[in-house]
Every structure is written in C-alpha cells, then in structure tokens.
C-alpha cells in the first residue's frame, strides 16, 4: 500500500498560469516532505522541502503548502514556464531513532507546460 500518493499521473498547464501538483500521505509519523523534479534521461533533482512544523515554504516561483490535518501537500509553480515540464515526485520521511530516516517517494506527476 502506497504511503505517498500522487493521484494525478499527468497535468497540462498553459505557460504563465499556475501549476498545482498534489500529494497525499497516509503515515501520520511523516515529519519532513520534499519535492524532486526529473527530466527525461536524467536523475531526480531536489526542488523544495518543508518540515511538519511549517505550513508553507516558498522558494522563488515554487511554493509548497502542507495541511497536516488532511495529510495533504501541494506544490505551486507560478508562473509556469516551458522549462518546468518534467516529472515531479513528492517524497516524505519520518524521523527514526536508531536507523536512517528513509525517504518514501510517490509515483510522480508529469507536468507539461504548453507555450
């Protein structure tokens, strides 16, 4: 059973508009969340993260919102650019006392920004 879900496999947005990518999680112990971006034939690259003590984190055009009660987070890209076309992975982690804090990835959402 997937602990991190991205229910939209794909999303198309016009250039200049807002892209909203959604992510849901089931494990209430998750306390840190990340978004990774992946271009074809390349490895994922870190984009932005948020700790569970916050409900928003912003970095330029990218903002992540966290709603702990709903176990939901979203990534907003404003304005969207054609270079943002990629697969976006949501990921989550829970602090472990005695071992590595494993990061669990969602299945990804493919974003297409149309010029």
């Amino acid at each position, binding site marked *: 059973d997937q602990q991190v879900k*991205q229910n939209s496999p794909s999303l198309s947005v016009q250039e200049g508009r807002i892209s909203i990518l959604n992510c849901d999680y089931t494990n209430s112990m998750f306390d840190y969340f990340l978004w990774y971006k992946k271009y074809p034939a390349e490895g994922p690259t870190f984009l932005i*993260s948020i700790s569970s003590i916050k409900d928003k984190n912003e970095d330029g055009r990218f903002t992540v919102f966290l709603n702990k009660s709903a176990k939901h987070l979203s990534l907003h890209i404003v304005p969207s650019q054609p270079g943002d076309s990629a697969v976006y*992975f949501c990921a989550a982690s829970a602090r472990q006392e005695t071992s590595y804090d*494993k990061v669990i990835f969602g299945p990804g959402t493919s974003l297409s920004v149309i010029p």
Partner: protein
Amino acid sequence: DAGITQSPRYKITETGRQVTLMCHQTWSHSYMFWYRQDLGHGLRLIYYSAAADITDKGEVPDGYVVSRSKTENFPLTLESATRSQTSVYFCASKAWTDAYEQYFGPGTRLTVT
C-alpha cells in the same frame, strides 16, 4: 567527473545472467542509495549504505546484492536477473549532515530479456 556517475547507462541482459551496475560519487558522502523506478511506483529503495562496509535493506531488496568497500563506490549486483527486474535504476548519495536531500545519478536503464 565531479558528482555522481552511473555505468553503464543502458544494459540489455538475459534472464539468469549476473549483472552489476556501478555507482561512483566524488563528494565523499557518507550515505549512498540504490532505487528502482517503475511506472506507477515512483522510486523504491533497494539498498542503502550509511558508510563503507555498512549496508542495509530497503523496500525491495530481494534478488539484489550490494557492497561498499570504498566510500565512493556502491555497486549493485543482480545475481540472477529476472524480467521483473527490468527497470531504471538510480544511485543517490547524501552527506551525513544533510537532513534528507539526496543527489541522484543519471540512471541505468536495464532490460532483462
């Protein structure tokens, strides 16, 4: 080359053969990871290593073997490849001090026929 590299980038092998995927990083990161990416599953952790000679299982370790004799290298071996191991494999590394951010290699696309 600086960073994290994987070789080969593409590999076709037959069922039952042994194949080794290589991963090399130049940052002296303590942690290294192997993931597989499959449609609908995202990235799933196969094995990870916290330091040289320390390895541990991830979500999907069956059929894979790892070793880490040197900090910079983390090879992944499929001892007897099966078609279900056809996938894209990513190696990643992380510094001890980094909270969760991992740095990924470019991936190896493996096809088992």
